[in-house]
């Protein structure tokens, strides 16, 4: 079990000059934990964070773009996995925080909460590399490898 705010704190320790897109509750936590001019929290409508991040990544190929998405959000824009895989920007990193809910709407459970293999969906869509973490140590280690 990983807490999202702890994940963000770990990310902050390794952050360099990445543009970071976060949605809803993750955006609030990000603003609190790691205020930064390169934080992007304007995603307009639920599910759209991954698509905003794609536009930014395509427009700024010189910068890494990291999106902190939610499982409820991604389910509202699942096709974006295929769109992103097709556009294939090398500077795009898609992080999904899975809590089994549409958190912003009162933590209503998502369909098949806890039974969806999001990492497999990403693989099947064509993401070239996928990782799955269930403890902070592994997350922190992988951030170190990629920073």
């Amino acid at each position, binding site marked *: 079990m990983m807490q999202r705010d702890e994940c963000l704190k770990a990310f902050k320790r390794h952050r360099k000059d990445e543009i970071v897109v976060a949605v809803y509750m993750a955006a609030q936590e990000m603003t609190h934990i790691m205020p930064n001019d390169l934080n992007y929290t304007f995603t307009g409508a639920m599910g759209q964070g991954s698509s905003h991040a794609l536009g930014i*990544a395509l427009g700024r190929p010189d910068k890494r773009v990291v999106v902190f998405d939610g499982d409820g959000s991604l389910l509202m824009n699942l096709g974006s996995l295929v769109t992103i895989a097709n556009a294939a920007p090398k500077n795009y990193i898609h992080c999904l925080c899975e809590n089994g809910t549409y958190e912003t709407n009162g933590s209503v459970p998502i369909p098949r909460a806890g039974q969806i293999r999001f990492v497999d969906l990403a693989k099947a869509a064509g993401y070239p590399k996928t990782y799955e973490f269930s403890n902070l140590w592994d997350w922190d280690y992988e951030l170190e490898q990629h920073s």
Partner: protein
Amino acid sequence: MRDPDFKVVQVCKEDEGISVCSGLFAAGHRSLMMMQYTGLLDSVNSLRGVAVEGENPVCMLVGLLGKEPGVAPTQSKKYGVKIIEPILDAMGIAHHWVEEPETRRRSCRPSKRPM
């Protein structure tokens, strides 16, 4: 799609495209969202959040598939076509009907309001 003057980003669903345009704008680029009117109807919430409330310029070229030639969209017998302009009006989104070459030229002027 093979025109080297354009970079085409294919999307699976139209509301994604609105958001990709928004991201490109944040990154300093101009973009054009091309879709049919059905896609616009499916993107109303993205447009509401991004283009209207967020005041983020999103330029769209929207096809009116099935519109009768020479008939104003609001007079179309096709329900989906008929409701497009009233919906844009209700959202406060500036729009131009482009059918003849002359209107095409006029519509290429920049709009002062987000669309």
